[in-house]
Structures are given as structure tokens and as C-alpha cells.
């Protein structure tokens, strides 16, 4: 029987002799509350511009891919260059099951979790085997291989056309309501990911992950079971990414590997992580929003936006605070936060 007791500064949950404490710090609540309220009120502003709403929805999804990636980078102490692999796997799983066997979104949701989990589990040993850069490269190759497969087994994955006409998540009478609902769903998804990841980072697990990210061998010496944590940190974010794929499938109702699997998409996500604040969970949100908005407003300048956009990104990366990105602009760290580095070349 779980017993909750409210202390002056914390909630203590007891269950038998298991005990967990959540420190409450009202002094840190103001800005998050403001931000979240703003995000929830945003539709009021753009309600009559569904495309902007869609853009922000997409931005939310980008953030929802970037946040698990950041968590994964922290926990595996390696940079995954192919998170979109699980986007693809999740998307195709959901789409195929829904199209061919008519599974409802809720069922496909479970299926996505299972499939992504299993595949991630099978691939996870690479986190011990492959050294830093090699890991990045393997993860870089995997999605491209999968992309090629979508063409080779065109009967199943339908190559460049992709899968179309999956059943929608919601079906209101007015489409604009749908889009509103999708915005809120994506927002909630993203915030949920943020919350979960944040809880993890601030929990006992988080401390151990930080240790792994700092120095695996020393961590081992301190008794940290590095391999197990690494597997967890590879599989769990992968599942989260897969769920985003599921969401895309059931909201856009078209899913083609050619859009999500190539390098360009990964670059975008990685840059969101970097611009937002390297491997720093909250940064992903401003990063995603900024990049989506920049990209969309650049379209106005015509065909030249194709080379202007990367240039702008370069400027962003170069001129934002080293490593801390937008988040670094927002505020300096509190000492008890752990601010991880990304080590690509790590042994």
C-alpha cells in the first residue's frame, strides 16, 4: 500500500520499506508554468491559420524525437546518428498493421512499442561492442539500409509512394477541430516525454547515467552496472521515437520512408539537439520551434532558401553559447544539474 506524505519541501512516497522522495521547489516553477501555459494558449492566436498550427505540431514532433535522443546520448555515452530508424520502424509497423489487418490505433500503439522494443533490444549490444565513432557510424548506416529495403520489398513498404490512408486518430466533424486536437496531442506527447526524461535525469538512474556519460570505467569501478543501463538507455528512447512514428502515421495518414529515413531528417533532429542545447533535454523544445519557424519563414525568399537555411543553421550553431545553445541563453546551470557532453570519438 503506497503511503504518500507531504513534507515541507518534498513528497515522500513509501511502499513497504521502499521509499521515494520528490523534491518540490516552487521557486523553480514560475517559468515552466508560464511556458506551458503559453504553449497551451497558442492555438487561440493561430487557430485561424491551420498551417501554422500544423507547423507547430510538426515542431512538437521534432522535439519529441530530440528529447529521447538527448536522453539516449546521455545514457549510452555515444551519439546515435540514426534515431530516425525507429521512427521508420514504428511508422511502418503501425501503418502496415492498420492497413492490412485493420488494427485500431490503440492496438498499433502497443504493437509499435513491442516491435521497437524487440528490435532495439536486438541492436542494443552494439552500445557495448562499438566504440564511440563506430557506434555513430553503425547507427548512421542502419536507417539507410532500411530505406533501401523499403524499395526492395516494394510490395510491402511501397517504395517512394509509401503507405497511405491509415485510419485517423481522431475524427471530429470539423477538420479544424481535428488539427487543434492533433496540436494538443502532440504537445502533450512532447511534454510527457520531457517530464519522463526529466524525472529519469533527476532520479537515482539519472545520477548513474551521468556517471556513465562521464567515464564508463570509473563508473564500473564504483559498482555501476554500465552494460545494463546502456541497454535500457538505448531501448527506452528508441521506443519513444517509435511512438512518434505511430503518431505521424495516424495524423498525417501517409508514411513514406523516403521522407523520414534519409540523412537530411537526422541532420535536422541532431541540429535541433545542438541548437537547443547540446544533449540537454529542455533545449530540444526551443530548438525545434526555432528551426521550424526559421525554415518556414525562409521559404518566402524563394528557391534560394535551400542554401540559405543551412547557412542560417551554421550561424546559429556558431554564435549560440558553446554547447549550451538556446538553453544556455535562457539561464546558467544550477550546480546540481548535470550538463553532459557529447563524445563521438569516445573509446
Amino acid at each position, binding site marked *: 500500500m503506497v503511503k504518500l506524505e507531504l513534507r515541507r519541501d518534498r513528497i515522500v512516497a513509501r511502499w513497504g520499506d521502499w521509499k521515494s522522495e520528490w523534491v518540490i521547489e516552487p521557486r523553480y516553477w514560475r517559468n515552466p508554468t508560464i511556458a506551458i501555459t503559453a504553449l497551451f494558449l497558442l492555438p487561440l492566436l493561430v487557430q485561424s491559420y491551420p*498551417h501554422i498550427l500544423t507547423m507547430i505540431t510538426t515542431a512538437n514532433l521534432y522535439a519529441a524525437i530530440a528529447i529521447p535522443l538527448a536522453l539516449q546520448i546521455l545514457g549510452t555515452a555515444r551519439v546515435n546518428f540514426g534515431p530516425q530508424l525507429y521512427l521508420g520502424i514504428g511508422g511502418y509497423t503501425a501503418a502496415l498493421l492498420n492497413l492490412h489487418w485493420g488494427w485500431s490505433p490503440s492496438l498499433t500503439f502497443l504493437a509499435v512499442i513491442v516491435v521497437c522494443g524487440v528490435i532495439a533490444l536486438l541492436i542494443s549490444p552494439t552500445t557495448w561492442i562499438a566504440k564511440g565513432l563506430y557506434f555513430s557510424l553503425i547507427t548512421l548506416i542502419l536507417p539507410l539500409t532500411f530505406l533501401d529495403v523499403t524499395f526492395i520489398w516494394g510490395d510491402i513498404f511501397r517504395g517512394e509512394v509509401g503507405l497511405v490512408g491509415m485510419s485517423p486518430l481522431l475524427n471530429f466533424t470539423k477538420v479544424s477541430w481535428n488539427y487543434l486536437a492533433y496540436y494538443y496531442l502532440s504537445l502533450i506527447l512532447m511534454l510527457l516525454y520531457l517530464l519522463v526524461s526529466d524525472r529519469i535525469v533527476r532520479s537515482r538512474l539519472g545520477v548513474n547515467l551521468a556517471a556513465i556519460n562521464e567515464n564508463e570505467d570509473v563508473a564500473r569501478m564504483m559498482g555501476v552496472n554500465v552494460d545494463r543501463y546502456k541497454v535500457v538507455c538505448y531501448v527506452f528512447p528508441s521506443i519513444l521515437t517509435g511512438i512518434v512514428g505511430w503518431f505521424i502515421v495516424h495524423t498525417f495518414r501517409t508514411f513514406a520512408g523516403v521522407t523520414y529515413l534519409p540523412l537530411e531528417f537526422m541532420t535536422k533532429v541532431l541540429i535541433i539537439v545542438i541548437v537547443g542545447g547540446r544533449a540537454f533535454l529542455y533545449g530540444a523544445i526551443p530548438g525545434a520551434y526555432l528551426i521550424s519557424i526559421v525554415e518556414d519563414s525562409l521559404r518566402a525568399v524563394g528557391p534560394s532558401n535551400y542554401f540559405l537555411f543551412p547557412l542560417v543553421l551554421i550561424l546559429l550553431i556558431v554564435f549560440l553559447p558553446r554547447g549550451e545553445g538556446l538553453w544556455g541563453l535562457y539561464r546558467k546551470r544550477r550546480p546540481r544539474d548535470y550538463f553532459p557532453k557529447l563524445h563521438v570519438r569516445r573509446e
Partner: protein
Amino acid sequence: MRKPLFWVGVLLVVLGLATGGWAAAPAATGPIKIGFMGNLSAPSSLSAKAAATMAVDEMNKAGGILGRPVQLIVEDTKGEIPKCVEIYKKLVMNDRVLAVVIAEKVEMGVAGMEIGAELFPEYPHIFFSTIGSGDDIWHRVRDNYKKYRFGFQTYYSTSTNYLKILAGLNSEVYKDLIKTKKVALIFEDMEWTKPLRKGLPGVSGPLAEVYKSKGLQVVYDTTVSLDQKMFNPIFEAVAKSGAGVIDCVVGYIDQAAFIKQWAQSSARDIPLYIWGGLAGMPPAWKMTEGKVNGVMIGSSMVRVAITPKTIPFMDNLTNNYKVGPIFGSHTTYDTLYGFKKAIEKAGGTGNIDALITQLEKVEEVAVLGTIGWDDRLHFNLPYPKYITPIVQWQKGEMKVIFPKPYKVADYVSPADLRK
């Protein structure tokens, strides 16, 4: 004291924004809006955009449609599905366009059509896909007319017609012009070639069978992937198979490399017939250093007057809009004219279903013959209505060798041309 005022102001602004923008359905008066979507880094989309702009300019010069000016809204999808969806919503829900033209790869067309079907009941509009090849667009109309009836596809052909009509023409070319019965088939590994590789159930067998029924003999067939760069093994095999012609059902592979390697392989004396794509564009000669010499291709970018419109179209496009005609520009241009005529027939844009009926009936003189759409399946009327002449590169220029009425030169074998 100040603060409340400020907040009230903010509230007013918000409400204003929120309530604004809810305009009525596409206005029955005022300009007729047409939305154009394409990946403006792809030459085909760029050229299609120019063609659309040109068509609209001409219409406005000629007094618009039913005296109403035509307005073209160009948007860039960047070739990303999320963007495509986003922009489609913008065009239909905010700009209230009467028609959306997607001149891009088929996955965009399909994605757009899905969103369109979602919007159509509330925001009636027409959807045209003018570059997306393959069958996915009209298959939707065939399978669920009521839901997708607003969608029309204009392309040189669809796989049904490839199999039913063009295959026949090709076999004529091979038998009568090239004088061979042995064909080697090369498919690119994409969706649009699948019906040709595997056949359409209930419509026709695969291309190989069709050729067989036409008295040809397929001695070799293979598929190539889009990112493939090395084709020598294929040509070696083709040469060994003793084929008389190489029939390449390709449009998107690296044709420059393909042709260059063909011209320097053991298969160089076997004529190469390409269904469409880069090799059919005027710059192809330059790009391949003249190695394209002797290649045959279905190309619409040749200066031969199929209709009175053809030559002016090409001149105008190249001179005033600074883009060469590529596949996609003709179709887009013709589509808009067909659309114009349909509106005039329907006598206005008020009733969308009347407009759709007219689009199904309409027939308008086009750059490549006659534009019009199948009244049930909504793909544009095939050959002989809509013609893609078969040309051969001879000493630096494309010469039409088929069909008869437009023929300007005879077929010459690559070996002779090389001399």
C-alpha cells in the same frame, strides 16, 4: 491600473486574430485562386512553376476566366511530407484556393490528396497532380469516387495506358523501325514501374507478356536501383543475351551515368530506348558529352508542332521564363487550360460538383494534343489524345522518329551514327 488595460488589449488582439480568417467558401466573384505546390529545388517543379505562371499570365492577358482575374499562389514544399501537408492546409483553408496543383513526386501528390479528401467536404476544391507518375492518384478515385472525386491526374501516361497503348506503340517501333524482335527490359526499382514488372490484376499482364503477345521476345530483364552508379554488368549481360533493343523503363535513375556507360560498353551497338526523363531534355547532349548519340526516348521537349500551341509554348517558356521545358511543364500548362475551359463550361465556380462534371467532360487543345480527363478515373486522356513523340538523338539534336504524322527523320542505328 495600467495592467488590466494591457491585458484587455491583448485579449482583444487575440480574439481579433482568432475570429479573423474565417472567410466564406471560395468566393463566386473576385479573383480565381490557384495554388501551386512543388519542391522548388527540383528542376521539374521549377519548370512546372514557370509553366503555371505563364499560363496564368496568358489567361489574365486574355481577360481572365469569365472576366475574373486568375491568381497563382506558389508554395515550396521542400520535398517534405509534413511541409506538404502544412502548405496544402494553408492553401485550402486560408487562401481558399479553388484548385491546388501539386507538381511533385508522387508521394507528395498522394499525401496532398489524403489531406484534400479530409478537407473537401468543408472546403470544396479541385486537386491536380501534374508530375506524380504512377497509379496511386487515380486508383484512389477508382476505389472511392465519392471521397476522392476532386482529384485529377495529368501525366504523360498511367501504367494501364503504358501496358494497353504505349507498349503496342513501342513494339511497332521495335519491329518496324529497329527491325528487331529481341528486347532487353531494364526497370528502375520504383513503385510506378511495378505494374509493368508484375502486371495489373484484371487489367493486363506485365510488360513482358504484353510484348510477347505483340510478337516480341524478351531475352533479358532486370531492375536497377535509384542510387546505382555502375551499370556495366547489365550491359555486358544484355550484349550476351543478343537483344536487338534495350527497353529502359526508367525516369529517375542517374541517366547521365547510365547513358555514358552504355555508350562505352559492349552493348553500345544495341539501340537504347528510354521511356522518359533527363535524356529527353535538350541539355542531355551536353551533359553526356554527346554520348547520348543514338539514344531513343519518349520526349515532349522537341520542337515539332503537335498542335498550334506547341512551338509558342516552348519559345515563350524558354525566352520569357528562363527555364527549359522539362517533363511536368507541359502537363501543368495544359492542366490549367483544361481547368479554365471547364470553369467556363460550368459557368462559374459556385458549384464544385458541376465543375467536376465539366472537368470530366472537358476537352481542350493542349501543347501535346488534347487535354481532358477520364470521366470515371480522372487521369488525362491517353494517346492518341495526348502524345509523347519518340525521338532519337542524332548528331546533337533530337529528331522525332515516331509517330508517323510528326516524324521528321528516320531511325539510324547507333553504330552508323557513331561513324
